[in-house]
């Protein structure tokens, strides 16, 4: 297992290089640059800005280290031709956010997106798995139909539409919740319950969590139904085990593998930020920042966020693969 994990970690290096290279090519292939605005900047200003941000160099060049690509790869590589040979990776600055460090902007935004994503994920897991299990255990009954209705409806309704309805009802009409902002604590205050403002938390979490909850409910129901039809479940029942033990020990655990498979990517998806939910509720998350950076061609922010997402999702996938082995002893990694 250790060798497998190390091998997977080493594979991240060429993965990262490939992602950086492809993103760099795509980013610079798109028409328009960071200084193409509704209000045109005079040519001398564009020249000065290009110089300031190193965009006066060629994007690619045989003289690699004198190109924008070479400069970027050199900056984010934690190695240097010097002693000691290590340095901190530098993700550069954001052209459109006061020259703030991209790493700082990601750190600030990610903490908020992380809280929102984790809460939405737990909401989805609790609601989805509960609903899916109840549906499966009441197969073809009214409760099952209600569960299927929820999962179909939840999966087909865009979360920003749901968010708009929630805001109108719970904020504008009832006044129970706020429309704007995020009510999670700062990082240093993470374990302080008083630092949470539920008026700002509930709606975004629900709006973001309904779709995965619906999806988890469908997967859970299907997986549970398949396991409930297995011979070993019939055997367990014929041995006289209580229904609780049959369900919790033999059914749910064995039904978990396909659910876990979708949970990993969904967790990564939720945690890396939802542009629409963050945009609608004006939440200062990394998803909103990333989409805005693409729109305004903020090269530094685009590259930094892609690099961060790549590393993050690669780690999430690695963790999920390791969890497979924990949940299903038949899976072994050499």
């Amino acid at each position, binding site marked *: 297992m250790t060798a497998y994990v190390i091998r997977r970690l080493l594979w991240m290096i060429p993965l990262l290089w490939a992602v950086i290279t492809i993103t760099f090519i795509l980013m610079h292939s798109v*028409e328009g640059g960071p200084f193409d605005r509704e*209000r045109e900047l005079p040519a001398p200003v564009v020249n000065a800005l290009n110089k300031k941000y190193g965009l*006066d160099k060629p994007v690619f060049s045989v003289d690699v280290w004198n190109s924008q690509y070479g400069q970027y790869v050199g900056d984010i590589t934690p190695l240097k031709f010097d002693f000691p040979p290590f340095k901190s990776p530098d993700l550069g600055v954001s052209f459109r956010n006061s020259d703030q460090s991209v790493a700082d902007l990601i750190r600030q*935004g990610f903490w908020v997106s992380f809280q929102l994503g984790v809460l939405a994920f737990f909401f989805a897991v609790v609601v989805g798995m509960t609903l899916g299990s109840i549906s499966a255990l009441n197969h073809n009954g009214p409760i099952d139909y209600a569960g299927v209705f*929820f999962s179909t*409806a939840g999966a087909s309704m865009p979360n920003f539409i749901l968010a708009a309805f929630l805001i109108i009802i719970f904020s504008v009409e009832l006044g129970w919740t706020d429309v704007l*902002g995020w009510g999670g604590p700062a990082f240093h205050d993470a374990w302080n319950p008083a630092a949470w*403002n539920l008026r700002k938390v509930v709606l975004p979490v629900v709006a973001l969590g309904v779709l995965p909850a619906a999806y988890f409910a469908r997967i859970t129901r299907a997986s549970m139904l398949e396991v409930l039809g297995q011979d070993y479940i019939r055997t367990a029942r014929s041995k006289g085990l209580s229904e609780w033990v049959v369900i919790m020990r033999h059914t749910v655990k064995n039904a978990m593998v396909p659910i876990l498979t979708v949970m990993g990517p969904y967790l990564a998806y939720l945690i890396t930020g939802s542009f629409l939910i963050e945009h609608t509720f*004006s939440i200062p998350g990394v998803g909103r920042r990333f989409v805005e950076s693409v729109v305004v061609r903020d090269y530094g922010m685009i590259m930094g966020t892609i690099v961060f997402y790549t590393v993050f999702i690669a780690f999430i996938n690695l963790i999920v693969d390791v969890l497979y082995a924990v949940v299903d002893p038949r899976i072994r990694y050499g």
Partner: protein
Amino acid sequence: MSLVKHWRLVLLSLFAIVALAAFAACGDDDDEGDDGETAAPTSPAGSPSGDERIDGGELTIQGNEFQSLDPHFSSFAQDISLHRMLWRGLYSLDMDNKPVPAMAASDPEVSADGMTYTITLRDGLKWSDGDSLLAEDFVAGLLRTCNPVNAGEYQYVLTEVVGCDAFYNAAAGPDGEAGTADDVTLDDASLQPLQDAVAVTAIDDTTIEIKLSVPKPTFPIILSLWMTFPVPVHLPRFAAATPAAPGDWGTDPAALAYNGPYVMDSYTPQLEGVLSPNPNWSEEYSSVGKAPTLDKLTVRYIDDLSQAANAYRNDELQATDVDLTQLETLRNEFGDGQEYFKQLAPSTRGVEMNLEHPPLDNLDVRLALSRAVDRQALNQVVTQGGNEPTTTWLPEVTGGVAPDEYDDITGFDATAAKKHLADAGYPDGAGFPTLDILVGDSPAAKATAQFLQESYRTVLNIETTITTVDSPTRSSRFREEQFDLFPGGWIQDYPDPENWIVGLYDTPGTLNHYNCSDPDIDDLVNKAKVNTNDTERRQQYKDANEIISTTICGIAPYWHENNHWLRKSNVVGISEYMTGQDGAMGGDWAAEAWGLSS
């Protein structure tokens, strides 16, 4: 059917979370105080007067996040709005757009040739941290805008300051092109002589001298703009500045000093900026004679204006910009002149035409395209009547003419449009080439293009195509002059007609991408630019505007834009001080006048 289905889905989902939301309603509201939530409006409908302000109170308004706190760098409206709250220049504009002394003690002394300005500061000026505000701070501000390392986006308005262009253009080398072999290394050795040659000098602690290369009658207006604001050179980061390292302005509010009506207490990216009154501000510095009365001013960064309206309804905001797609609803809900207000913006939009693309070089073709568009209908369809239809480029408020002044020549008239097209050699559109309308990907821009396309088809019997691209691509193609028809326009930088004509419609103008070239316009511009007789030069620009507007020399104007705001009835200063100088919120050019009446 689908709506009914969605409502059922929504109700089902809502049922599932009602308990959670109800629980949330019982929770702590940590931000209640921070948000400055207000009680229900207590004033009667109508505008409160500026005298009604009480001492204290908290105001929370909608805004957009600034791109840069550095006034010598930025060019975005929301940045400029914030800069004017935090810093002020030697002069400020009053309600009539006239420059009046702010940090300066009096009007500038101008030499007989109109090229040397001597300005004396008020006595006892202080930064927010108590340090003295001196002439060298203003000199540093002007030099910082001219500095190529800082790459200020509005350097071009200082082009007449002796040495400023040479300093700024150093980066691109002798050929003026960045990225070429002759590029200059921006080090102190190469930049120091260029900086020294910029003719801005602190004669003593309270006297500044600025030399221009040509007379510029509008220079006092320029000295009221954000790119001339002072630098707190007493702060270590600026004290150690060199031409090659002019100091990072940064985004840490505590690491800066301010000379405007407010100081910035905190900034949370993507969320909000919180301001409070500057203890060293005096109402003498204000062009409207005001000092802040608010305890706290919070600018919430909100991109989605439809949700800003909901937050306004929910009393999380006390003032917000209005989403034009909801204009009619909001106007009816909040009452025109009660909580809803609009203000004519110094902006004109129209169909820009590339005169180098035949047949747009033909005046009759341009007139046909202009007269085929019903501006009233366009305004109603696209903006719910939110703007002011026009046929003049230069707005009346900035020295132009009434919006309908040229209607008889270029306004909507289907019969006249057909005749112009026939006179151009395309009777009933026969043989007319297919032109392309290049447009951005916003709903309003696409609706505008579709309206134009349909107008040309039904009135002139000609076909056009629509190319929809995102904003940077659209701007890039405009700059490269890769367009036929381009719905676009202009928002003024400062309230003078020269800002609407020079560089845009003169033949060598760097922003003249429509390729307008008319010797009469060139002649008028060349005279007006250096004419120190204000009445004469304004008339010269007015005459140039007439040629531009009636010959469609690059643009067929269709409307002047309006700004639309909502503000609670107990908020004072937003509706009272709305002018064309507004940046991101009504009256934000004089935000020291904002307050609460109860």
